[in-house]
């Protein structure tokens, strides 16, 4: 049966039914949102990891990362040895008024110095304040969540494979040192952990 106003009444019925249900609106800032760990809120910097290689600044599509650095000379520790140089980071700043939150710098960093944090409450009245210098970026680091566990269908992270191999090597090296039965010259060489392995 089709009586006039039927569609309207049907719509109102939905509204009335909904009125009896609990509201889904979250009252920010009284209720803070629960954000997933991957949320791109703000970029945090581990200054200690940064080698000022400039990869992030070059890859950034908005050119919003500013890096200044200089080389420090570490005098040779042995007589007649070579002096070593080391990059020292003077300035690392991200201008969040330009940033497009694309995550390319975090991906490009070969030393895991940049990380995403879900924090988002850093609005400012003055646009210049949106340029976060390195100490402020370092502070965001405390809010960075641990990466999420992956789906069972996911391929193992390559770090796990590397770590397992390193652990095996370390275990083998220990076996080599303690019992003498199986020690051969070849094994000895193979099991030496190489420099740089972790």
């Amino acid at each position, binding site marked *: 049966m089709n009586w*006039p*106003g*039927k*569609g*309207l009444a*049907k*719509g109102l*019925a*939905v*509204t009335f039914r*909904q009125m009896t249900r609990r509201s*889904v609106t979250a009252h920010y800032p009284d209720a803070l949102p629960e*954000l*997933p760990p*991957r*949320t*791109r809120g703000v970029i945090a910097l581990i200054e200690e990891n940064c080698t000022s290689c400039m990869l992030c600044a070059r*890859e950034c*599509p908005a050119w919003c990362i500013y890096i200044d650095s200089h080389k420090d000379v570490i005098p040779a520790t042995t007589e007649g040895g070579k002096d070593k140089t080391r990059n020292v980071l003077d300035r690392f700043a991200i201008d969040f008024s330009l940033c*497009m*939150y*694309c*995550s*390319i710098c975090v*991906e490009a960093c070969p030393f895991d110095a940049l990380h*995403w944090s879900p924090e988002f409450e850093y609005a400012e009245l003055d646009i210049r304040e949106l340029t976060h210098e390195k100490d402020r970026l370092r502070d965001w680091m405390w809010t960075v969540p641990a990466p*999420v*566990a*992956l*789906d*069972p*269908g*996911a*391929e193992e992270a390559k770090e796990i494979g590397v770590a397992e191999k390193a652990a095996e090597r370390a275990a083998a090296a220990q076996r080599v040192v303690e019992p003498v039965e199986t020690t051969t010259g070849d094994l000895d060489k193979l099991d030496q952990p190489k420099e740089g392995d972790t």
Partner: protein
Amino acid sequence: MTDVAADGREHVVVGIGDGAAGFGGHERGGGTPGGLATQDMVLNIGPQHPATHGVLRLKLTLDGERIVDCDPVVGYMHRGVEKLFEVRDYRQIIVLANRHDWLSAFSSELGVVLAVERMLGMEVPTRAVWLRTMLAELNRVLNHLMFLGSYPIELGAITPMFYAFRERETLQAVMEEISGGRMHYMFNRVGGLKEDIPAGWVDRADDAARAVRSRMPQIEDLIFGNEIFQARTRGVGVLSRELIDAYGVSGPIARASGVDFDLRRDDPYLAYQELVDDGVMQVITQEEGDCYARFGMLLDQVQVSLDIVEACVDRLRSLDRGPINVRLPKILKAPEGATYAWTENPLGINGYYLVSRGEKTPWRMKLRSASFNNIAVLPEVLTGCVVADMVAVLGSMFFVVGDIDK
């Protein structure tokens, strides 16, 4: 007075004033019965007009209430994206590609990576293909929900927006969990996707899709049967097949006029071929071609997309362990040549014509966006309408201004 229209229905015209041109018996510019000549008026709508959701400007030439000419002025949001593509490497292009149509970010990213992958002859891992399909469909649902909420608002019905946004929020939570973004996902990479699926995400996505499906009847009941809504949309702004062919209109708008064309079936990419063979992916068309049919298409397409999402969830659960992307060289260069990749974006055909000279940036990347063609046909549809119908027609063309202006 009554006037019998071509479709046999009687139109009642109440009140005849100076601007009654076009109504029964009144010629354009005929003036008042007393013999006073009337003048056409140019009415400027926009660029800042709430009903244009963006900065689209329309110059309407009016004869009384009747629109005799419409001139869409586009370009207020022109960002020169094609030129910017030329100085960005392929990963940086994805950042820009998901911004021209901010409601179909994932689908727009997809076109770029599909083009580059085709140039490289790259094989994408199966899990990535199915996950991409699923996310593209979730993105389609998000897009359609936006218009299912915003179109009634333009016609004065506020309530459906809240229901549509609740559903959007449900799905956005899932999208945010996997990609980290709510609108600009930036989750596609050449050769696959950025990161693997978080543990338990597939179940949560499945729950979200089911929850949305279970609540879609609410949106349907709220607005589709509404007499006021129907009176304002049925038979208004009918788009003919000839106009669709002439202007290259695509997507749900074209299918609402009976054009049976959907790239997901007609030029399958991702996993769509299999979904079509399984009968999950269906192309829905309607015949009327009016505002109501266009709006109805959205609801039907949401149902189909949710079916596809469910099929993808089943598939992702049963797939073998494997990678989600291909390891890329440090510097990615597309080989010399050209290709055209097009995808069925939520709003219509989105195409990228990529010309590479073997550099790490494209030599030229032409963007064919759906909204541009869909809005180009607007003058043809609007001519002859009354001003009150302008918003109904404009809103039902489903466009994003960023997608028009690029």
